[in-house]
């Protein structure tokens, strides 16, 4: 019998049907994957199953009994917990206080800290988290925080744990540790539901994978038998031609960007790198290897020293000087630092470029319309807020914002994170087109197939230092991972 099942769930928002009669069943002691492009209805389904939102019609059953969740608390009481991508933890409380937030062990009406810390320690051991219960949560690295969140879920005696993109922010070893933990929870009889964009992860770690498209359940596959191609085709509803565009020029141009003896906060040895016109150069490495920090220092968002030249001309320090020299950085974090989600799309696309001291509203509007066509953005109206868009379209707005400034060198940080398969291909072909027009592109990415498919040359970083450079045939998953993890050196 399934521990949790949904039956003909339908949910409508103004203008869209997010879920259209979806039925799924989840069993105890199994790991279920759910995939779909952005906007396919995954997150809506998760929100309904975890009590964040309620369905318009359809039924949820827990262990065969029909239930109706009025709140997250309701769902928790039935043993269903969701771990959100943006972890719901309080940085200013201790690890134990976070785990037991809302159901603190009490003695004589006051919190029994001794019992709480002891129980927290048990849970932390169970999820192999090295943090101490008394430690301040804010001091932990992200991967540890995630483990705390899982410990928190377990503290509720959860039968079903739903995880939304749990590996998006983790490095490879951390990801492996997380999947070991998931396997262990599975052994203990917990039902795990994983939502992810990373197909091979799901194939390796799930028992079965359900595919959603346009709010409907497309089908479910056995993870042992299925392939990435099969899943991708089910997600987009068509066969994917090769996602990566063919290289034409492959960076035979002049040296465009030259960095030598560059030091930034935390760096272990000075960095040298260069990018030719028309070249796409990757910066690979594990999360936390200092790639973003290097990029932010290069464009002047953070302190840095050393020689930075664009077309042979030294670039002054500071973001403004970098922008004037044609050096721009498209942030990995669209929500926090990349975009103004609450503001209209057309404002965003003109924020970096500007539109005169007295605004030229027509130019602002036309610029947004131009980019919308050029990047094939799926947008109802450029006056809508960015928050109304899917991840892929948001990323296109972010690209448009910086391309509007006519950059010479584009630094892209994880350009396809949280972007669906269809939009990914479009972003790749736009990148190649830009390179063919003579732009230099420096791409930070943790997605190895992407690095291998797109880059003419790859730098690899480890522990805030440049540890290698690969080009042409040398670029492979193995060679990159060996350098990134420091194997065989």
């Amino acid at each position, binding site marked *: 019998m399934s521990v949790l099942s949904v039956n003909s769930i339908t949910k409508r928002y*103004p203008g869209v049907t997010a879920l259209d009669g979806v039925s799924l069943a989840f069993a105890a002691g199994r790991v279920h994957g759910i995939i779909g492009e952005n906007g396919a209805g995954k997150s809506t389904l998760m929100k309904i199953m975890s009590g964040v939102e309620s369905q318009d019609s359809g039924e949820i059953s827990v262990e065969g009994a029909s239930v109706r969740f009025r709140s997250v608390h309701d769902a928790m009481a039935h043993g269903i917990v969701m771990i959100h991508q943006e972890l719901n933890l309080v940085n200013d409380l201790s690890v134990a206080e976070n785990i037991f937030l809302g159901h603190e062990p009490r003695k004589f009406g006051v919190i029994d800290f001794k019992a709480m810390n002891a129980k927290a320690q048990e849970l932390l051991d169970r999820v192999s988290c090295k943090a101490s219960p008394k430690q301040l949560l804010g001091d932990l690295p992200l991967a540890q925080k995630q483990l705390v969140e899982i410990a928190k879920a377990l503290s509720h005696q959860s039968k079903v744990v739903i995880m939304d993109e749990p590996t998006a922010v983790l490095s490879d070893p951390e990801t492996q540790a997380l999947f070991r933990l998931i396997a262990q929870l599975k052994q203990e009889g917990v039902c795990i539901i994983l939502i992810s964009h990373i197909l091979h992860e799901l194939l390796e770690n799930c028992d079965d994978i359900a595919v959603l498209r346009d709010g409907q359940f497309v089908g479910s596959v056995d993870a042992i038998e299925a392939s990435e191609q099969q899943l991708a085709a089910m997600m987009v509803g068509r066969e994917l031609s090769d996602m990566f565009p063919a290289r034409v020029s492959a960076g035979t141009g002049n040296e465009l960007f030259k960095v030598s003896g560059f030091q930034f906060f935390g760096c272990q040895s000075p960095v040298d790198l260069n990018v030719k016109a028309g070249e796409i150069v990757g910066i690979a490495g594990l999360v936390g290897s200092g790639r973003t920090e290097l990029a932010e220092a290069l464009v002047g*968002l953070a302190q840095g020293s050393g020689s930075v030249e664009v077309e042979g001309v030294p670039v002054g320090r500071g*973001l*403004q000087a970098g*922008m004037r020299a044609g050096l721009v*950085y498209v*942030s990995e974090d669209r929500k*926090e*630092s*990349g*975009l*103004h*989600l*609450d*503001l209209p799309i057309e*404002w965003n696309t003109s*924020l*970096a470029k*500007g*539109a*005169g*001291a*007295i*605004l030229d*509203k027509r130019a602002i509007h036309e610029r947004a319309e131009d980019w919308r066509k050029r990047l094939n953005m799926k947008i109802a109206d450029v006056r809508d807020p960015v928050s109304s868009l899917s991840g892929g379209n948001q990323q296109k707005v972010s690209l448009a*914002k910086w391309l509007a400034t006519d950059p010479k060198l584009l630094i892209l940080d994880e350009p396809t994170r949280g972007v669906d398969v269809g939009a990914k291909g479009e972003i790749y072909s736009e990148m190649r087109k830009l390179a063919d027009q003579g732009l230099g592109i420096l791409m930070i990415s943790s997605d190895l197939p992407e690095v291998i498919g797109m880059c003419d040359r790859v730098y690899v970083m480890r522990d805030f230092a440049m540890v290698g450079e690969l080009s042409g045939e040398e670029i492979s998953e193995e060679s990159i991972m060996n350098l990134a993890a420091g194997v065989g050196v």
Partner: protein
Amino acid sequence: MKAQRFFQDWGVLIAFILVFLYAAITQGGSFLQWPVIVQLFTQNADKGIVALGMTFVIIAAGIDLSVGSLLALSGVLMMLNFNKFIASGTPENVAVIYACLIAMVSGLVIGLFNGAVIVWGKIAPFVATLVGLLAFRSLGQAFAEGGTINATKTEGLQVIANTGFEHSSIVNRNDIPITFSWPIWIWIALALVFGFLLNRTQFGRHVIAVGSNEKAARYSGIPVQKIKFLTYGLVGLCVGIASIIQVSKLASVASGSTGLFWELDAIAAVVIGGTSLNGGRGRIWGTFVGVLLLGLISTLLVTADVSVYWQGVVKGGIILVAALLQRGK
């Protein structure tokens, strides 16, 4: 959801019209006459000007609690210097101009000082301007030795607030033309300028961008610190202009009571007008109508003989209703 959106956009105007109609009906025809309307504008122009500046600060996700105290301080500085100029034999009209400049410059400079403490001192706006709230009034009282300073010559000063545009066809009951005093025109002109500044200039858009998402603004190359600094200068300048009007009304300044609690009235008007205290969203016309609405309610309460002690309850209730109607989901 649609209804909520509608209230967010037009609530303050609807409220103003409803209250106005209520007044017109209960008070009979006497309310719907020029003198009453003109007086509403005259009485609230100075406060309205402060609220205009406050709108910018709040849209940039800041707050300024020091405006009331700053009003007293720049009024005191203006008056002390005016009397000094007169004493030293400066012609009265020249002294008036100097005094006005001193009020504006002191407002601007002290406002920028607030901004510097917040931006470069990295002190939370609430705390930094709370310091101003305490210190500026105290400073004003110290300069004025605790009391009221009267102008040694009053005529020239009073021209600013107590004269204005008159037209022979717009008269009161006794057929005397009504004065549309200069402060009204200054307020309206500033509202237009500020509306343009917010909606039509790069500066305005940067203010909104900073308030909406400061980090993304920084990553976009917007000079976040400079923008924040300037919003405090802007509200300071508004306070300086408002202090001229205040001083001009009676040709005197009371260091202990001038501008007392104005920070709260200004913030209330901004919020009622539909500007979000979280920053990133706001409008000038809303603030303008918000000031008028609060002013109208005060007038009504007085004419309806409601005890002074109850007025705070009514105003508080209005702000609560405004906040409830405008809250997000």
